[in-house]
């Protein structure tokens, strides 16, 4: 029998449908792969027993003829999604052994569609980080190596690593400033952040509410479409959820891009970006042209302000969102001499350095006397950034950009240099600020044999075109490299 973990989600679903193998066999194969890959540290909480129960139930459903969109597929869940009865940590110490009595809407949708959950995947603590090094459960190691351990990107590093290493057929992730796309770029996987409001945020541990958005990391563009179709959908429990039907995204993959206007934003050419990145980008433009797309030069003049805006808005919201972790009702509590002392000790011990840094930045920018200069101004510039895109859509249908300014870098290289770390989001953060869908597709290997990704950004709610363009890009790139299986 072929190695079932090498399958794409689409082919695995087909294989089960054709009764070539059962969900149990597929699940067992993946559990085996997970067990052998502990060196990657991709999981915080494996749920193999639960997965086998779900696979068994799925196989029974299949006999009775009721099958869902993800029927029997073993998948990973970023440990930012609350899962009923399964510990949810956000990779933090402060949540301790918090076990939610409720299920996030996204994971509930996937459960209802027949998902088998292999476990909760590692991430940066509270999704704050670009290298998956801020997790209090230790860093995730990228399956791709370059003589030394590399980071998988972040914050959805566990999701990206698990998919790249064939530990699961796909995984959920979340993206606040690039946390789906940058790790996808670093691991040779596909990751899409849909339009803000496509996926319900209900039950996802909040980082920055106006930017957070769930999406999948997958092996192929088609797999990403299948997963997102299950994850997305209107949810009255999230006031920012968009009440629009979920289209047939899977069907959009493979459609011709003839006549599609692909914008190339000139401001995404930046100083200090490795030549290889620009070269892959140029190659991507050629691929799209050859596929029949029309290439358009566009300008997004406020791009240079995107990172500063992001690092005001996101920490501001985070400082408030994380106020609830106070040791009073659940999670870690470190007793102090009085209430204020208990708060201080709990939060000092419970939050890692990066989370504390952002809570402090956020508290500062919202403070009386600084609010106007930072938060309010950032919101105004954010509007301008969104306007840039609206302007661009007059001359193009999607934008093509690099995903990240570098390939995966060594573990420990940037962790003590927050500014360097924050620069990772430079190409991705604009889509969050404007609420637009963005997808990263693996394009090529760099000189060191590490994957590089390209990003397609589309109009709000126009994931169909994004999937179409991404499909064309994927086809043209023909990226089929896999990391050496050094970990098992």
């Amino acid at each position: 029998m072929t190695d079932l973990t090498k399958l794409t989600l689409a082919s695995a679903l087909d294989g089960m449908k054709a009764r070539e193998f059962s969900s149990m066999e597929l699940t067992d194969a993946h559990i085996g792969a997970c067990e052998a890959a502990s060196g990657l540290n991709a999981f915080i909480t494996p749920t193999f027993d639960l997965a086998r129960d779900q696979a068994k139930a799925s196989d029974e459903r299949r006999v009775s003829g009721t099958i869902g969109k993800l029927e029997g597929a073993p998948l990973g869940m970023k440990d930012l999604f609350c899962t009923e009865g399964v510990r949810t940590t956000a990779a933090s110490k402060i949540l301790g052994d918090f076990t939610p009595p409720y299920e996030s809407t996204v994971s509930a949708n996937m459960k209802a569609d027949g998902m088998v959950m292999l476990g909760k995947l590692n991430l940066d603590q509270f999704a704050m980080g670009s290298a998956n090094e801020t997790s209090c459960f230790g860093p995730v190691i990228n399956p791709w190596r370059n003589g030394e351990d590399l980071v998988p990107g972040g914050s959805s590093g566990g999701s990206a690593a698990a998919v790249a290493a064939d530990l699961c057929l796909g995984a959920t992730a979340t993206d606040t400033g690039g946390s789906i796309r940058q790790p996808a770029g670093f691991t040779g996987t596909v990751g899409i952040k849909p339009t803000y409001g496509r996926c319900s945020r209900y039950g996802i541990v909040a980082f920055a509410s106006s930017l957070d958005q769930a999406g999948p990391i997958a092996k192929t563009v088609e797999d990403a479409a299948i997963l997102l179709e299950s994850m997305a959908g209107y949810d009255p429990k999230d006031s920012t959820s968009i009440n629009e039907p979920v289209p047939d995204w899977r069907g959009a993959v493979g459609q011709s891009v003839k006549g599609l206007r692909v914008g190339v934003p000139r401001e995404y050419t930046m100083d200090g970006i490795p030549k290889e990145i620009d070269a892959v980008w140029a190659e991507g433009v050629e691929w799209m042209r050859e596929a029949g797309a029309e290439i358009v030069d566009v300008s997004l003049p406020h791009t240079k302000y995107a990172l500063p805006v992001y690092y005001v808005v996101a920490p501001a919201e985070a400082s408030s969102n994380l106020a609830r972790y106070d040791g009073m009702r659940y999670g870690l509590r470190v007793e102090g001499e009085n209430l204020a002392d208990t708060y201080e000790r709990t939060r000092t011990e419970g939050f890692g350095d990066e989370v504390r840094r952002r809570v402090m930045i956020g508290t500062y920018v919202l403070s009386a006397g600084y609010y106007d200069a930072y938060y309010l101004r950032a919101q105004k510039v954010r509007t301008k950034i969104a306007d840039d895109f609206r302007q661009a859509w007059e001359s193009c249908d999607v934008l093509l950009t690099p995903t990240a300014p570098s390939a995966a870098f060594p573990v420990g290289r940037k962790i003590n240099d927050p500014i360097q770390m924050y620069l990772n989001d430079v190409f991705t953060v604009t889509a969050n600020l404007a609420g637009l869908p963005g997808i990263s597709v693996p394009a090529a290997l760099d000189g060191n044999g590490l994957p590089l990704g390209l990003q397609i950004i589309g109009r709000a709610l126009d994931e169909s075109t994004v999937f179409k363009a991404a499909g064309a890009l994927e086809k043209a790139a023909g990226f089929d490299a896999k990391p050496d299986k050094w970990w098992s």
Partner: protein
Amino acid sequence: MTFIAPRVADEKDWLQGETGPWELIIGLEVHAQVASIAKLFSGAPTAFGAEPNTQVALVDAGLPGMLPVVNKYCVEQAVRTGLGLNAQINKFSRFDRKNYFYVDLPQGYQISQFEHPVVGEGEIEIVPEGGEPVTVGIERLHLEQDAGKSIHDLSPDETYVDLNRSGVALMEIVSKPDMRSAAEASAYVDALRQIVRALGTCDGDMEKGNLRADVNVSVRKPGGELGTRCEIKNVNSLRFIRQAIGYEARRHIEILEAGGEIDQETRLYDTVKGETRTMRSKEDAHDYRYFPDPDLLPLELSDDFIDRIKADLPELPAARKARFVEQFRLPDYDAGVLTSDKATGDYFEIVAQKRDPKSASNWMMGELFGRLNADEIGIEDSPVSADALGGLIDRIADKTISGKIAKDVFSKMFEGEGTADEIIERDGLKQVTDMGAIEAMVDEVIAANRDQAEKAKDNPKLVGFFVGQVMKKSQGKANPQAVNELLRSKLGL
């Protein structure tokens, strides 16, 4: 917010100090709990007096990933209230987070409306006791969620938290600094209470804490520069509002006259000691770091939505009072009392239907309120219904019974012994109008009191004694007028 206070208090409301008169400037922030069965951002119930922590949705407890969803009913009630306050309804408003840490604030922030409240400026007219009507400006009304409750007295060294109130919808109604005496402040809160009760948007029950006030007090030389204000938090009865203002005004005057300065601070009113004391000073004031709540979309109200609420507004107490004066020719005082809450007004309108409004009013304000108050029963639960009281008044009008007998009958009705007719019938209370029977009794009484009858000729006042005797003989049933006339003629008066 910059406040101006152009109106100068009536001289009778000036407070005398050592250095001359002072004028009080008062503004109020009233927190009115929205009469809603569910909370502002969750479906959890809001029943009063439930077991601790039994009315708490996941979002009310601040669990990770839980999101608020605005309760449209509460928004409607805020708009209704705004319309009742003759106020501007803001078609665009927004929820903000007010950030601070406390054990009974599970999210670490309170969702409120800071920059863009749902209701803007308005005004209401109040009539302070013994004073002229005063117009009080409304600065704004906004929606916000209540916090939980910290319970410090269950254990000497532990604080317990009850989250039942966490997330309950409140309307914060902010007045302009338009009140100049404790009586005006008290009348203002009472007027607000009547308005929200008439609208049905708040139960207005101060004892249950669903209407409470933060009182801002300062003093100035009449018409002079505004002084520094202090805010007295959470005062929960009209009496305490008056007392707290009285105490606080005196405190300010004493400090100022001794050459001191008022510290702008937040104070608490100690109802036992009858004094206010510092809760926190300006230096300790929180920086609440308000910012728009990214979990919630701005509230955008359509004209249609507002118009539908407008069309459905009930008659408000002030309008009803005016109508009672006009339609029923009631004295101002009666109309005021009878329209002070909706149920009382409704009761009156039933009793007064096709009857003499003034007797209806007298019976309600006399016997009915007397008994209800003595037994601490609300008019909604009155054992004597409006129709039943009307039935009793009918028997007086058609002279079946006298007013005096009617009071006894009322008492029996109140005890649940039946309708007026049933009791009159059962106890044989029908007034005796048979002149023959009355004459026989009159003759008997005169015969038994010959001496007195003689004296009566010189002292006509004695007729009262004879009336009393005859009435006693008839067990009160004889028509007193007939008795009086017969006696006068028989005694030769």
